[in-house]
């Protein structure tokens, strides 16, 4: 036995332990800065770590890339339905609907001092279409002069205004030099936004400091933005509850007790139902779901109040027969809502409707399909969405009372969505299109052009329902040059939705948002909905340029 060596080994261990104990004996240091120079601290709950990638065309870009660094020509605010001019002062649609002209501000410069011009807009659209595609209706984009850009459309398409206007714009002088713009990490971004200067970039957090050349005077009141990384809601919620962040844009269960009650004076939340409609989709290629009566009956069996209360902690509003989410309140036709009853819980009526459609209950109370099979199906939902999983469980429970056997199937989202895309599913919980107008929503749930046969991959209209009537109305909307024409088309679509129930709408997706006025004031509220509290929406920049630090 070699004792000296052993002694050495033991001593090393001993020193290590002593050091470790000394280290762990340190006291906790406080987090969060004082007021005045405080950073606006925001958690990001679905990015465990950050990469210094500020490429706005990349799906994994660091948060705030599209909100604080790059800007668009206009900002549409779903909370009040208003459109805010941003890098464009004004715009004009030609009478035939084939040209869109934007007048750009002439006082905007990039954060490196270069002037922002119409050429940058033209370049961005070229790059966007090259990298990510889209804008298929665009025939041409031209810089008329430095401050005017003109889009020529192949055919009239009224939703184009918002799509074009909300495109994020990048500087030509930076991006034209990139050989591989799709993979360009853009670590030192040059943008027109209010906070463009990246500072202290760590995997767990980074700061964005003010753009020295910002075009708006008196809009950069805060010292900077600080983003924190979390791999799940738990950590982000804890940060919010503990007062470590100023703005919590994620789902917080029991927000009243968990968050507000700890400081009711300063802490607030506002969850406007302006997100996309959350639907329960039924695969209409299956015989049992091809009958509108069955779809409506299933919808009538749902206790939407319970779904909203328990599944979504009561944070949103239940859907009505138009399928329109709270973002489209201005378009909603109340007459249709009042005249329709298939989004109201009524088991008797639902049963009667099913009997009429041939889905009668047997002696054991279980319903069968007209060809004698048990009326049973799966409800697919991704396992990681715990709130939607609860919703699916409630639906299964509700249907059980009607004698229908629904079971919840929850693999990971990837396989759920793969099933949706190829049409190999029975029913499932699904989001819908969120866009400034209801056009996209209705196109994706009812148009025949979006229907693909089972087996072929599609990225919308998973439930594969289409009717020529919808096509006609959608075409009317696209061609309409004024608000009245658009409204008429949307009214028609609402009626069609109420008649056909192509999907079973459940509730409007809420736009999560909570904040504390401890360090910053000027937040959007229900009374002053100048933006939503989302940190990933085009409206985020409106909040960033409004917030004021608390004096003192």
């Amino acid at each position, binding site marked *: 036995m070699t004792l000296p060596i052993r002694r050495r080994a033991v001593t090393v261990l001993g020193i290590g332990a002593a050091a470790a104990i000394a280290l762990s004996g340190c006291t906790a240091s406080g987090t969060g800065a004082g007021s005045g120079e405080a950073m606006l601290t925001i958690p990001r709950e679905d990015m465990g770590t950050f990469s210094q990638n500020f490429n706005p065309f990349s799906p994994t870009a660091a948060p705030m890339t599209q909100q604080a660094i790059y800007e668009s020509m206009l900002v549409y605010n779903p909370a009040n339905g208003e459109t805010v001019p941003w890098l464009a002062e004004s715009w004009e649609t030609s009478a035939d609907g084939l040209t869109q002209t934007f007048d750009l501000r002439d006082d905007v410069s990039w954060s490196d001092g270069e002037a922002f011009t119409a050429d940058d807009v033209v370049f961005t659209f070229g790059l966007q279409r090259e990298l990510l595609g889209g804008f298929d209706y665009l025939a041409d984009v031209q810089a008329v002069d430095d401050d005017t850009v003109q889009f020529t459309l192949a055919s009239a398409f009224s939703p184009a205004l918002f799509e074009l206007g909300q495109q994020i714009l990048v500087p030509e002088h930076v991006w034209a030099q990139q050989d591989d713009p799709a993979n360009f990490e853009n670590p030192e971004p040059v943008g027109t936004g209010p906070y463009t200067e990246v500072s202290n970039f760590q995997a767990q957090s980074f700061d964005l400091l003010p753009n020295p050349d910002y075009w708006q005077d008196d809009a950069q009141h805060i010292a900077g933005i600080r983003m924190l990384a979390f791999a799940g809601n738990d950590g982000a919620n804890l940060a919010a509850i503990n007062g470590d962040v100023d703005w919590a844009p994620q789902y917080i269960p029991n927000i009243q007790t968990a968050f507000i009650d700890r400081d009711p004076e300063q802490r607030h939340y506002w969850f406007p139902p302006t997100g996309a409609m959350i639907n329960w989709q039924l695969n209409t290629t299956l015989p049992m779901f091809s009958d509108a009566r069955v779809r409506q009956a299933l919808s009538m069996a749902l206790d939407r109040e319970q779904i909203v209360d328990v599944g979504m902690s009561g944070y949103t509003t239940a859907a009505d027969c138009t399928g329109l989410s709270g973002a489209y309140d201005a378009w909603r036709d109340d007459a249709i809502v009042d005249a329709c009853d298939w989004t109201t819980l009524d088991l008797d009526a639902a049963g009667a409707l099913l009997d009429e459609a041939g889905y009668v209950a047997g002696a054991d109370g279980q319903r069968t399909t007209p060809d004698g099979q048990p009326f049973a199906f799966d409800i697919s939902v991704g396992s990681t969405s715990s709130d939607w999983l609860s919703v699916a469980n409630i639906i299964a429970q509700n249907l059980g009372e009607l004698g229908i056997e629904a079971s919840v199937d*929850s693999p990971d989202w990837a396989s759920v969505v793969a099933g949706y895309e190829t049409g190999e599913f029975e029913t499932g919980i699904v989001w819908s299109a969120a866009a400034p107008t209801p056009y996209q929503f209705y196109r994706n749930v009812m148009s025949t052009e979006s229907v693909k046969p089972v087996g072929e991959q599609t990225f919308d209209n998973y439930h594969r329902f289409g009717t020529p009537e919808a096509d006609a109305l959608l075409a009317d909307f696209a061609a309409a040059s004024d608000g009245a024409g658009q409204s008429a088309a949307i009214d028609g679509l609402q009626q069609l939705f109420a008649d056909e129930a192509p999907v079973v709408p459940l509730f409007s997706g809420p736009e999560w948002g909570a904040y504390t006025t401890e360090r910053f004031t000027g937040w959007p509220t229900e009374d002053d909905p100048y933006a939503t509290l989302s940190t990933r929406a085009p409206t985020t920049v409106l909040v960033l340029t409004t917030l004021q630090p608390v004096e003192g």
Partner: protein
Amino acid sequence: MSIQSPESLAHAAAVRDAAEPPSTRSIATRPPERRPRARGRQLLRLLRALSRNGKAVAGLVILLVFVALALAAPLLFPGDPSRIGSGGATPPSAEHLLGTTAKGQDVLALTIWGARSSLLVGFVAGVLSTIVGIVVGLTSAFFGKRVDDALSLVTNVFLLIPGLPLLVLLAAFLPAGLGTVIAVLVITGWAGSARVLRAQGMSIRGKDYVGAAITSGERPLRIMLREMLPNMASIVMTTLLACVIGAIGAQAGLEFLGLGDANTLSWGTNLFWASSDGALMIGQWWIFVPSGLAIALVAFALALCNYAVDEVTNPRLRRPRTARSATAPTTVARKEDAR
């Protein structure tokens, strides 16, 4: 503890393999029984001895209570325990002894129903891992030479590959469900028991009565099952217990991470839901504590049984060397160092 698997048993054997230091002879591998004719009787004697051991009785009682509750769940709480009600989370009361969750489910019902799948998965995965371990270990010990070299190599490799990361990787690639969880637990859990059982098998293989059986022309399978296995009862039992502990913990860990099937009702999913409903954040301890405590109690009970088996079969742990501590409470063997 989610990773306290039978691997831990094996490092004792690893020491022996590496060095065979007499002064530190590991306790996990103890000398085999000497009586060749005792065969099935070893198990009986072991059980009789265990019935007089306080730890074994305590552990067994806890286990039986849980098993009984699990079996009686449909009688105690008829209906679907995960049925979503209204009313939100309420603290413990006379009506709901352990309170309710944010979805209005009775926590006591969830915990007792959860025992069914947790215990089932734990025991099935534990038994399967042990069976694989027995097959590999005995084959290795009986045939020796090339077979042993190859099997030992595979065993050691599986022992070294970190369990939980492999578990996470497998769970990510395979479809969620109870079957997957069990399969994954067996894949990551068998090697530890194989290692220990091989070491024990080796020493029995060297006994005269095994040699005699071989000479008399008995089939290898018969020798392994009739001559060798019965004399390994105690080591098989400790291995099994360790495997079950490991499996229950690992299942809970997987489910907590959201990699299990969120529709099964088990202790792990109860904790997953508690966490995703933010129960602990708002101080709703009654949702969070019961399932965690249940896991700990079952693992503790199994560990008690495990130590009891050790004490019964290892006299040195029972009798202190000097008289000064004759009243010493006898405790535990090195079963779980280095989790």
